[in-house]
């Protein structure tokens, strides 16, 4: 009996998965015709920010392309494994890679000899998250200016928790504090948050979504938003932005789609057009708003994204490049 039940549950699961959104519409974008499923390789595991963004985008894109869009998670080596795998796929316009600047940083800092910059070609940007500095509500400083005064009086005492020492968060700490605050690497986000509230580490560089609960409950206060403009999230009205303090540091996780060398131009153009409609759809926009991912302009077309990627490469090389 039970065996049958389990089988029933499982088969329903697979059926639901198989027939989700199999609309008969075949969209034709210019001279390119989508004939079979499109695969997006996500070089990070299931459940994280990269994965959820890609999956939401894939759902929206599927409606535009008229063919299934499958997300294939191939995690490992901070994203490099997935990119390496993706680069080996046939460049026929049906395989794309999702990425952030993190694997690029792994190359710049020398953690991997793999040529990430030469492999990934920017196609479109989906979202652009922000980074903020937070501290325990019991800290003696209430904003970034007071923090830096405290650092000047107590040199070497203040440390900042980050998730990747060669990541954008560490780059934010180094950039904004002129190297006066030392970044300390954490491997679990939960431990970092607990250590900030427990006072084991002084400040942390994180994304607003990761600390929303602790900021709302008053266990953490926000010192700085590393952004061009002040954040519009509720509770962040009095948080200064990098720009108004004259700090030239704006790194944040930019999640985009990249194509492999040799992908046909027609496919790239068709993908770009369909992706724009997908990103601008109410479905995707509502999701982004819920996630607090509406603080920066998410959508960038191929040209804009290429310019930004090059800019990121140059400024990150300046901060972390092998001397």
């Amino acid at each position, binding site marked *: 009996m039970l065996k049958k039940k389990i089988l029933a549950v499982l088969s329903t699961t697979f059926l639901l998965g198989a027939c989700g959104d199999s609309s008969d519409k075949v969209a034709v974008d210019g001279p390119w015709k989508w004939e079979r499923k499109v695969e997006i390789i996500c070089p990070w595991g299931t459940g994280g920010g990269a994965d959820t963004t890609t999956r939401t985008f894939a759902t929206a894109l599927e409606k535009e392309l008229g063919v299934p869009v499958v997300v294939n998670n*191939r995690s*490992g080596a901070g994203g490099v494994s997935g990119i390496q795998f993706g680069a080996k796929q046939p460049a026929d316009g049906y395989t794309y890679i999702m990425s952030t600047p993190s694997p690029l940083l792994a190359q710049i800092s020398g953690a991997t000899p793999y040529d990430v910059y030469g492999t990934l070609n920017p196609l479109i940007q989906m979202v652009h998250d922000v980074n903020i500095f937070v501290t325990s509500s019991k800290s003696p400083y209430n904003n970034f200016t007071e923090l830096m005064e405290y650092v000047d009086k107590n040199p070497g005492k203040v440390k900042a928790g980050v998730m990747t020492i060669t990541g954008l968060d560490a780059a934010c700490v180094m950039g904004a504090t002129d190297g006066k605050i030392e970044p300390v690497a954490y491997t679990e986000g*939960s431990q970092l*948050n607990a250590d900030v509230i427990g006072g*084991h580490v002084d400040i942390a560089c994180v994304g607003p979504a990761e600390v929303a609960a602790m900021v709302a409950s008053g266990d953490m206060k926000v010192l700085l938003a590393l952004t061009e403009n002040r954040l519009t999230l509720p509770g962040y009205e009095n948080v200064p932005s990098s720009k108004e303090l004259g700090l030239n540091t704006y790194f944040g996780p930019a999640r985009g789609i990249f194509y492999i060398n040799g992908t046909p131009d027609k496919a790239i153009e068709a993908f770009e057009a369909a992706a724009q409609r997908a990103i601008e759809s109410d479905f995707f926009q509502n999701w982004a708003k*819920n996630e607090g991912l509406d603080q920066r302009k998410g959508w960038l077309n191929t040209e804009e994204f290429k310019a930004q990627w090059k800019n990121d490469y140059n400024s990150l090389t300046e901060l972390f490049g092998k001397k």
Partner: protein
Amino acid sequence: MFDLLGMGLRIILNPSTFLLITAGTILGVVFGAMPGVSASMAVALALPFAYAMDPVIAIAFLVSVYCASITGGGITAILFKIPGTPSSAPTTFDGYPMAQRGEAGKALGFSLIASAVGGLVAAFAMALVSPQLASIALEFGPSELFAVSFLGISVLSCLDSDNIVKTLISGLIGLLLACVGMDPMLGISRFTWGSSTLLSGIEMIPIMIGLFAVTEVLKQTAKSKKIEVSDKEKNESTKMKTVLPSVKEIWETKGTMTRSSILGTVIGILPGAGATIASFLSYAIEKKVSKHPEKLGTGIADGIVASEAANNAATGGSMVPLLSLGIPGGNAAAIMMTALVIKGVQIGPLLIKTQPQYLASVFGSMLITNIVMVIVAMAVAKVFAKILAIPYTILGPVIVMLATIGAYALKNNTGDVILMAAAGIIGYMFVKLGYNSAALVLGLVLGQMSESNFRRAYTLANGDLVKVFTRPITAVLMIACVLMLVYPLIKYILRKKSW
């Protein structure tokens, strides 16, 4: 707090919610039993279903998947020596020998009862003293977490008392393997020889599947003649009804049950530590306090109870900081948090005052799941146990196939399959040469946690070692470590005197 209990039960006992939780439990047990599908992956797989539900019910559903998947991991650990989830690796130590003796039903019974008890203890701890427990968890910074993981490593000295040197060497190999990959503090690669599989470190799951499952197949293959006989015996003895543990037998493990449930809850609460570390530590501590430590590992109930009660208690424990602080205690809890946040729930200290229905729903779900689970898992186990009747000439290759799929599914990466195969061969050599695979796994599990926390503590204290070790909790734990390390020596000296 009884309001909370009442509210929880009212939410959960609604027929449709109850059905969903039962479905979640089945899903969890089945996913958990599949090697390579960890508890957090099971929760991630269940997430799309939860999106469509009311948030109060969604969290109850996800909790049921989470708890049940940890239990499901024990089924394959006992029957085939394949730990379904990393946290059920210590279950293989005693569960598999019992199954080999034809006591599979008994072993599964102990595993399920212990899981349920552990889960229930944690659920009550969560409902009654959540805020207090969470504030204790905040006292654990990097130096304290280093001490906890070092306590786990110091337990190596007594995993196999006949072979202390070889066990220590195995443990050190594990610690060495934990160093492979990206340096946790500096982000440079270590011991990777340019391989991208090794850059992300040596994953626990392929190593464990290799060391336990593949090695076992190799062992059985090497002595193929005997199997024919024992298969026929097994056919007789795998009838589950006849060998279920009696109430009296279960009552005899009450000490282990209590210790492991409490330990599991506490470890689950600590950020960064999870069900895996809880089950290993609990098993090791059982080995320390047991009246007959030499029997552990030969197939006795205490060993199964220690591991399974602790890993299920840890699932409840990890919900404590999530619901009272908004800090998930582990990966699976983090995924649940994402689900709640998307639904617009504000997690944090105010949750219990403003939206107690969430806490009530988690609590109620844990209560019901842990009870329903025993029935569901028993039925699933019965199906699985039938597989034992298949001749090993067929079962062996199927196990290797499952192991390969499990290793590949982890990251869709063939590199992990190679790691698994290598681990299987090394495991076979270990068995032949008298080294200890469990010690290697323990070193691998705890190596990264202890290394990164020690270096973090060292950096935060600006390189002042005295400052690192004089923190009160750290100091107490480190003294416990020293005592544990010298205890076998003292026991040895005392025994000599009495002779």
